[in-house]
């Protein structure tokens, strides 16, 4: 069997190419596989109840044909791709799905899934408030609690404090390992390409947490020891935006004179930057997911208790984590990408570009329709952007 014989980067590459391979085996062996959409379902609960959390992505190379029956065409093509694959039976290894009200279409997707995708009978929707204020955290904790109870029914067992603690520690370990993986790109040239990085992370999202951790440890060791390294390029870029679960954009950028050294996307740093803090309980989970994940779907202003809004303070409150990444990874340009019709990210762009301007970081905004083919014209824009960097 392929999986047993390969490890490290080549194993990541194999799983990236066929994401369901390991969970299909586990399911045959009696494990329950729970698909989750976006970053907001607390996966620690899934792992703690002995199930496997599997991050659901779309497929940029598969034309959307079946989804038209259940959605309009003027919504997020990433989420449309997911429901399209679901309708085509491509997620038939899942026992269920959990989604969250990350955005309106994200919520609708879970409902459509429940109504139309028959091979995964369990479905759950978590409501997520859109600010990070204290009452919002309390409300979200209640939502996590009802998810927990629903999942306990499916598991046929109760969630114990001890199991939750163990799961939190394992997932925190995973986050720490991913941050170590990102450290490998702080040097110039970086030791890992962004294409390899995406393959590793997509693979991690397709494995049980302990196996994902093992893969990360192998990759980090392999990369530190290997002789062939990525080459030094003119630009060290940060890529920002919603989900990009595919290597194509990174291949395109790295085919010209640039290395992507860090990102702010939900397949990258956003998913792994924040730990769950002890004591490991539902409130800690609520804080980790609602407050500490930095996704524009949650609005974080500076004026929690102030009546007057200060624009600059607001910008800093929303984006200073990006400033830190720019300094730590020595970034000299930013590519803001978004999938078409994503209001959540689209509204963020003018503010973020302004913030980057004040930091002296040139940026470019590109929009794609979540298909590999649509990327070709983007290449010219990326090249021209690099030419403006001088």
């Amino acid at each position, binding site marked *: 069997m392929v999986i047993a014989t390969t490890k490290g980067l080549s194993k990541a590459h194999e799983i990236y190419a066929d994401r369901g391979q390991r969970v299909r085996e586990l399911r045959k062996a009696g494990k329950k596989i729970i698909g989750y959409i976006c970053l907001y379902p607390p996966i620690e609960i899934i792992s703690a109840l002995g199930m496997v959390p599997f991050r659901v992505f779309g497929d940029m190379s598969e034309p959307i044909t079946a989804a038209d029956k259940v959605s309009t065409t003027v919504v997020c093509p990433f989420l449309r791709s997911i429901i399209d694959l679901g309708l085509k039976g491509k997620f038939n290894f899942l026992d269920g799905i959990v989604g969250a009200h990350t955005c309106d279409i994200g919520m609708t997707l879970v409902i459509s899934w429940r109504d139309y995708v028959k091979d995964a009978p369990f479905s759950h929707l978590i409501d997520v408030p859109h600010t990070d204020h204290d009452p919002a955290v309390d409300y979200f904790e209640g939502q996590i609690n009802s998810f927990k109870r629903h999942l306990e029914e499916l598991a046929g067992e109760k969630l114990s404090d001890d199991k939750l603690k163990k799961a939190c520690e394992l997932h925190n370990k995973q986050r720490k390992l991913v941050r170590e993986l990102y450290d490998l790109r702080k040097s110039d040239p970086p030791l890992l390409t962004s294409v390899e990085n995406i393959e590793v992370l997509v693979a991690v999202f397709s494995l049980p947490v302990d196996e994902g951790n093992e893969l990360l440890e192998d990759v980090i060791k392999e990369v530190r020891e290997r002789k062939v390294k990525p080459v030094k390029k003119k630009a060290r870029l940060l890529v920002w935006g919603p989900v990009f679960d595919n290597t194509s954009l990174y291949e*395109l950028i790295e085919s010209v004179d640039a290395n992507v050294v860090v990102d702010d996307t939900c397949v990258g740093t956003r998913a792994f930057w924040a730990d769950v803090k002890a004591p490991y309980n539902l409130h800690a989970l609520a804080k980790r997911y609602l407050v500490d994940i930095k996704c524009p779907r949650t609005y974080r202003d500076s004026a929690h208790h102030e009546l007057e809004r200060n624009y600059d303070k607001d910008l800093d409150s929303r984006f200073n984590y990006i400033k830190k990444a720019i300094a730590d990874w020595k970034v000299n340009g930013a590519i803001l990408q978004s999938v078409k019709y994503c209001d959540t990210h689209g509204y963020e762009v003018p503010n973020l570009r302004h913030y980057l301007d004040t930091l002296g970081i040139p940026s470019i905004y590109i929009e794609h329709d979540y298909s590999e083919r649509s990327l*070709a014209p983007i290449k*010219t824009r990326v090249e021209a952007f690099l*030419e*403006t960097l*001088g």
Partner: protein
Amino acid sequence: MPGMDDLTSRLYFAGIDIGSTMSKATIVDADGKMLAYVVGPTGAQHRLRANKVMEDTLSKAGVPLSDIAYIVSTGYGRVNVPFADKQITELTCHARGVAALFPDVKTAIDIGGQDAKVLKIKNGRLVDFLTNDKCAAGTGRFLEVAAETLGLDLNEMGNISLQTDTPVKINSLCTIFAQQEIISRLSTGEPLPDILAGVYIAIATRVVKLARQLKVEVPVVFTGGVAKNAGMVKAMETVLGVPVLIPEEPLITGALGAAILARDEAFKLVQRGEYQAHREKKLTEARVDFGEKAK
């Protein structure tokens, strides 16, 4: 060690711009002065021989290929010009070409056959840009569709539109829907000049919307094939609210910029001692594949 002497016998530089609709080439001398240019269609049967445009330019300038020190290719087809020394995007090349003709330029608007771009230029350098290259609305193609629908020639269409000051409002910017709208306007008896002027206003509105995202600063230069059309120029000035400058030949700014950048690049290489003087250069077939996956 190669030095400046290597360039003395080859003091000419060329730029070739393979656009979606037209291919253009220019040759400049060591001062960046343009000696000749040629514009030819890129069209299906010409795609495989974009070198023709280069050949024609050489003969027009009376310069043999062996005297060309450096060639830069640009435009959609830039990656497939085998005789080019370097590829530079059309955005940077346009900015350079426009700045060569209008040194004070701050904003350039280029409408090509299948795309529109807005460039912000500072001290002759491209500093920011936006493009519309996903859809034919607001491009030359939109005008072609309108002309086809009305059975008019493009220049004729521009002149007829100048006869009115009361353009109709075309609501749809989608090329296909606008075509239907033109037909329905005709059937309700709206005067032709008003409809045509409305079509130009619709395109200008679309492109100016793009430009406003980058803040329009004067002087504004308007280029691309569409800038040759009198109706389009009037509409652009109306919507922008400021006059626009138009080069004598608005199609060749990209190729001119490419040639000037070729000169800059060659001088830079000579200074660094990296210029390869006696390379064999041949005008091999330029193969242009459109819509190829970016890989």
